């Protein structure tokens, strides 16, 4: 299982939004600072915090908090 607090903390650090503002449906559509550059920054931060290596496809599919959690759990399972 993914540590939900840790996940929100990383997103909050990288995107510069408070933890309270982050929920499962948070995505580039409703968080203004989540642009393409911060998306790359987020991918790098997730790789480093959760000690995983993500493929370009994984990285591109991580388009909401819910999807990030699913993909991370999937990668960690393997």
């Amino acid at each position, binding site marked *: 299982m993914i540590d939900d607090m840790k996940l929100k903390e990383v997103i909050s*650090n*990288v995107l510069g939004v408070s933890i309270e503002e982050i929920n499962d449906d948070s995505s580039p559509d409703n968080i203004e600072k989540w642009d*393409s550059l911060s998306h790359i920054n987020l991918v*790098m931060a997730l790789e480093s*915090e959760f000690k995983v290596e993500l493929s*370009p496809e994984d990285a591109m599919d991580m388009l909401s908090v819910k999807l990030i959690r699913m993909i991370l759990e999937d990668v960690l399972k393997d």
Partner: protein
Amino acid sequence: MGKDTLNKLTTTIINTPSDYARASREIEKSVSLKNINICFLSSYTSEVLNPYIIVELAKNGYKGSLYYAPFNQFEQEIYNPDSGLYLFDPDIVLIHSRIEDSHQNLMMRFAKYSDDELQEISEDIINRHKKMLDGLRNKSDAKIIVINFGNAQMTEDCFTSSPVIQSQRTYIQNLNRSLLELSNKLTSCYVIDYQQLFDHIGLNNCIDPKLFYMARIPFNSSAQIEFGKIISRTIFAIYSSPAKCIVLDLDNTLWGGVIGEDGISGIQLSDEYPGNVFKTFQRAILGLRDQGVLLAIASKNNINDVFDVFEKHTDCLLKKSDFSSIQIHWENKASSIEKISQELNISLDSIVFFDDSPFERDWVRKQLPSVKVIEVPKNPMNYLKALNESKFFDRLIVTNEDRIRADIYQQEQQRKSALNNSVSIDDFLRDLKLVVKIGNSDDVTITRIEQLLSKTNQFNLTTKRHSSADLIKIIRDGGKVLWLSCADRYGDNGIVGVAILVETKHRTWLIDSMLLSCRVIGRKIETVLLAEIVEILRGENAEELYGHYIPTKKNQIVSNFYKQHNFQSTDKKNNFWRLNLKESSIIKPNYIEIVRND
């Protein structure tokens, strides 16, 4: 808030991208760090470096504000006076055109080129950089940092000792040499060696293909952190002056063991382990001396035991004469350091203390908080690393004066001991056979003049820190920038004085700046400089000369300078002084020979 931010940065561990992102946001809110505007021109997505540059700069007390030009827009930004670059008004411009981005075939298909083609490409690359640097320098006073070319990350041939790879590496080295020559010709232009990044963490550990192919980012997050450190360290070195002196302990610092107990044959100092660790450290200390750092000793020992080692131990690379000041006795080390500071005439904040004993380091930290104390690791094999990582001795240029500085201080000691034998001060000075040379600033001397202006604190009437660009403007506007060098029977001191003169109204001149390096104070050289100023200005038909004195914490020594030379005070605060050139003269001492370098 600034102090808190700084404390937090030095006490919390920051080593992941997420930590850096959070810390850089906190720094952006801080108000009291000193701001530096940095413009980054690059051939890739350099924005990802932002948190790393910001956090690493803040550790040294600076707040970086960065403007990233769109990638590959070098010429557009530099040649257009209304570009984002000039609107941003940068203090620093970073230029990084990766050769992998501009010449993909050169890096991946090197073998296909003939020698003539290679020569042509090399000329193209260097010409392009020359045009960019000249264009930038003509429009902006910003300091320029160019990042040079690194070895290929991807080639058709991965066998590193193959002739193709070897000639490709030589080719890159030659490009880098030309680039360095180019930037040395410009004022305030510095080069970062890009290869450093790969040397630190390995060429193969630098890249994340996903980042490169998806986002044009040529390095992974650990390489980004490392590159942020390299860039910030260079920026910090531009804004700070290197420490002037290192004060060293002896036992378990310059050799293993305790000389008073182990004796000359028992201490560890040799070509075998563990003696070779200390011998190597001694060689590195001599390397600092070569770059102009003064060496001093603060040790609790019997002085004769120590001198025995210097004279008789064949593996002791350091000799007594390499040290500019020696304090060996049983008094506390804080007072030793104070004595060294007085003897060498340098302030405590320009001194670094290196001692293996935590007790001595704590004592010095508490007694003399402005002295820079290196946290010396327990294992002597890590001494060198600690010395390097302290950054206290980082310098971007080494001048001729730097190379001979330690020798000059040694000559000064010989002079002082001669002084003890002399009858009177006048006799002593006569015996020194002083020769003073005075000339106008030119391309060769301007770097040294700028250096003296930036670091002279004591014998400095106005402490104005003019840059070489300011000096060029003063000369263009009709002012005079003079240098003074002096030699005596013990050796040549090089350029040690500066005077800047400007005409404020018709036939009225002002001494905007006047300074002398502290090592030549007390020989009436200042009187000679003033007398020469008067003569030079009479040649310009000047009638009145004003002197300006701006008091600081450190320049008390010159508070009466103009009064002693018969200038009249013109204001209550005694800041401006006047000399009527038609009525008064400055009397020169007759034992100094004066040469005009016209």
